[in-house]
């Protein structure tokens, strides 16, 4: 029996650059990514800057990095549970209200979409430079992350793909 999910068609690949760490924008990125993978496209998401918050192993706030500034930034940026709504965030209350509205209407929540992305074989990669600035290591990220890459690798691998910047 094979559990492998494969994209067998000649459809164009899709690469999403997830720069934003806003709850709603990350959600949009994962909806597009999972939708594309489920309809037989090979999908990669390249996370950089604020987007890296989605990949942190610690979902909450945590001092990470060596220097004072990196520690402070990482604490303030937080992890997956702290993603703010891009508008009407109301001090972080809105993402929770939005999640409960999504559940009420049977729309997949962000953790469910991330799990689906993994099951569908979507490649999650992290930006080397942004990790370096924030003094984060590969081990600070969730194990689903396939690699830490630079912009040249990301562009080479996306040569024949649609690229969407979120």
């Amino acid at each position: 029996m094979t559990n492998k999910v494969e994209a067998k068609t000649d459809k164009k690949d899709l690469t999403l650059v997830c720069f934003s760490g806003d709850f709603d924008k990350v959600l949009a990125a994962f909806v597009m990514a999972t939708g594309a993978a489920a309809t037989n496209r090979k999908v990669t998401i390249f996370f950089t800057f604020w987007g890296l918050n989605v990949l942190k192993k610690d979902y909450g706030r945590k001092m990470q990095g060596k220097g004072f500034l990196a520690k402070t930034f990482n604490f303030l940026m937080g992890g997956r549970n702290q993603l703010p709504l891009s508008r009407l965030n109301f001090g972080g209350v809105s993402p929770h209200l939005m999640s409960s509205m999504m559940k009420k209407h049977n729309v997949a929540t962000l953790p469910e979409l991330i799990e689906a992305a993994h099951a569908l074989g979507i490649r999650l990669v992290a930006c080397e430079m942004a990790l370096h600035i924030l003094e984060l290591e590969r081990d600070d990220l969730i194990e689903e992350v396939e690699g830490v890459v630079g912009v040249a690798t990301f562009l080479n691998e996306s040569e024949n793909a649609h690229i969407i910047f979120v």
Partner: protein
Amino acid sequence: MIFLDITNETCPMTFVKVKLQLAKMEAGQDLEVILNEGEPLNNVPASCEEQGYKVLSIESVGDGKHRIIIQK
């Protein structure tokens, strides 16, 4: 025959659930899917055929719902 009801799911989990269920099955096995008209009905059967699976039947079961049988 394996059964999957995606009438309560919304985009993109409609496609996602069908794709992941088919991935778990053996070649030759059948999957019965109940889905809503509109986006799921327009795209789920087409997406399965793209992957090389056979859509054996599509029938309306009323109330805007349809039953499709897919053979892996």
